[in-house]
């Protein structure tokens, strides 16, 4: 992976003003996005593609929910917990959301430390992020088992439209898989940071390329994306 070299404004070619300038910026020589590395560009484009995947999942779910002729189970009731005798709707989901959003915060701190080349802090913060992520997946596993124990299956449930269970398992399962992959990436990168791979320019195991601290930020992009997707799932599946 090649390091981005800053292009001082004085070195760039003269370019036209206004709209023509906009076009020529986009078309400009060597790189369209100046000072964006290959890895970061790739992650952004991948996330765009992944957005379409989640978008299709959510649209499919919404069209099922809107067109069903049987009642849709009430999410506030389904996802309620009895805590100390009190009936609290959506409490687990609220905690899960809180945990995941907190993990975005620690991730952002890790990125900051990474650019300051603070190996220990970066690795620790990434570990904390991974821990939050694992907690999230754990709570999701709890939620799944609770629902399964109550009789929710992909092909039916005791309260109404069968698509409730199928959409729930499919969408949260797909998102949970993303979080799990994210946790694995975080652990791998955290290990590399801890070991100082990016200071010693140790070649990667598979690609035999030297990594850079920027990979922390790229992992962060993925992590924030997974977090953002959850916000939409939360809004459209649980709050609707």
């Amino acid at each position, binding site marked *: 992976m090649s390091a981005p070299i800053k292009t001082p404004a004085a*070195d*760039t070619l003269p370019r036209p003003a206004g709209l*023509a300038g906009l076009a020529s910026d986009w078309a400009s020589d*060597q790189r*369209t996005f100046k000072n964006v590395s*290959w890895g970061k560009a790739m992650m952004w484009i991948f996330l765009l593609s992944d957005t*379409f995947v989640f978008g299709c999942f959510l649209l499919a779910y919404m069209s099922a929910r809107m067109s069903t002729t049987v009642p849709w189970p009430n999410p506030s009731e389904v996802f309620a917990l009895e805590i100390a005798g009190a009936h609290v709707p959506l409490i687990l989901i609220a905690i899960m959301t809180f945990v995941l959003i907190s993990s975005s915060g620690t991730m952002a701190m890790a990125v900051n430390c990474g650019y300051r080349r603070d190996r220990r802090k970066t690795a620790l913060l990434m570990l904390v992020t991974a821990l939050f992520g694992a907690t999230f997946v754990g709570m999701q596993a709890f939620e799944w088992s609770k629902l399964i124990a109550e009789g929710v299956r992909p092909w039916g449930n005791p309260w109404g439209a069968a698509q409730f269970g*199928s959409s729930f398992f*499919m969408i949260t399962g797909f998102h949970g898989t993303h979080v799990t992959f994210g946790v694995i990436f975080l652990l791998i990168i955290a290990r590399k940071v801890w070991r100082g791979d990016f200071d010693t320019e140790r070649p990667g195991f598979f690609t035999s390329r030297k990594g850079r601290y920027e990979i922390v930020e790229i992992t962060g992009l993925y992590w924030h994306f997974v977090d953002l997707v959850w916000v939409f799932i939360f809004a459209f599946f649980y709050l609707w």
Partner: protein
Amino acid sequence: MVDVRSGIGEPLPPPEVEDVELYHPHSWWTRYVFSQDAKIIAIQYATTAIAIGMVALVLSWLMRLQLGFPGTFDFIDADAYYQFITMHGMIMVIYLLTALFLGGFGNYLIPLMVGARDMVFPYANMLSYWIYLLAVLVLVASFFAPGGPTGAGWTLYPPQAVLSGTPGGKDWGIILMLASLIIFIIGFTMGGLNYVVTVLQGRARGMTLMRLPLTVWGIFTATVMALLAFPALFVACVMMLFDRLLGTSFFMPAIVEMGEQLQHGGGSPILFQHLFWFFGHPEVYIVALPAFGIVSDLISTHARKNIFGYRMMVWAIVIIGGLSFIVWAHHMYVSGMNPYFGFFFATTTLIIAVPTAIKVYNWVLTLWRGNIHLTLPMLFALGFIVTFVNGGLTGLFLGNVVVDVPLSDTMFVVAHFHMVMGVAPIMVIFGAIYHWYPKITGRMLNEALGQIHFWVTFLGAYLIFFPMHYVGLVGVPRRYYELGEMAFVQESVHTLNAFISVMALIVGAAQIVFLFNLAWSLRHGREAGGNPWRATTLEWQTPETPPPHGNWGRELPVVYRWAYDYSVPGAAEDFIPQNQPTPGRMSHEAVS
């Protein structure tokens, strides 16, 4: 606006990116098998795609045998016929055309044409091929699975795709098909990200986007579209797999099968159609745009003339790419959706004709008063233009709701899309192989064999598909195993069907000439030299032919001009390579 021809004489931009570290292979295995070199990966992709394409070709023969001579061949029963249709369609569209244009030509041409050493992520690029191969193997496995491959039609419409009346519906067929598609999409994404980032961020000094050859523009835009369209197919496949394996009801309405009420209920088959065609229509242009791009370069090079209206060509590619995402429901006029949708989608569909027509005019105007060399690539390029116009015109019929309704599900539709996305892109693939084979191998393909191949394929394709339009117009439905005694089917239809089948066998056999040519010329072809077509683009300016790993030797190329400086008045030669500085500026600028 960016003047595509200006920039000559401007100061040379400084390099923005360090030269890349390449993985240097140490053994035969990492050099030729698990290779990270985009050019080797391209050849692997192309070979696999052509091999599986031959399977699909044989399947089309079998279908034509049944249609032309019904009842003659015992081994083709109705189930087998539907399996042939399904596998022929899916293999040709996804595993041959998409893989060959993007995985094959994309991998070979993008790094060379933009002046890069390799794709930006060679390791992911290598994985992309091996995952594609896995997808192909899973697909092939369905031929040997109990119950055989799926016979749901290449569109895999539920509910019939997962019911027991359909071959493979309750066996392995549909499962393996869906699994294979999912694997294909994962593999493609790895490659696709590479192609896009290489074009955007990995170009040579001086290579602005508006100096890119149109080939790269076509492949690039198609890849972006594929990255946005394949997700819909991915989601549709996952959901249908769940319907089949877990008993969910995403696409399955309440349904009675063999007198028995199934467990499904409340799903929407139309939802699948929307998801499928949200992928399926862009897919047409994912195949067509690389063909548009490549054919522009073939025409310009072999007519020794700059492409007419380069900037309009670029915009047309981009606009077609964008529009193709909002036309999908023109495949669904008879699905029972709201008629106002039909109105909207008919309008957008017909609007696409505008940028497409711009492209066709520009190709013709490029030829106008050009110094046309009727080489094999040029012949195929001309064949493409004619075929594409033909197929495009019948597209206008099918894009209009009122005309489409009676024509829906007739052989007219089959003839239309075979012309426009079967024969036309295949013409470009052949032209491109004749054009770039000398760069890939260092030898020319045999001219005489190529002429036989072209004329039989070109004329044969018309003898197959022109009569098929007529057969469709009189109302013969598609996907019918046999016509039997239908009052509206005249005797002439049966005669034509037999004729079409004979032609299909001949055209199919002509491809053997092509394959033989590929193999024979590898050893015995005429030595090509580095730039046999006297072309301007960077891939012809490599220090060695075939280009080695890393493409350019020690120095990366520097680009001084657009890709179409042919027959420039006053120039010494009738072409000026993109990396040649203006005479007079050559002395010190070239080495700076």
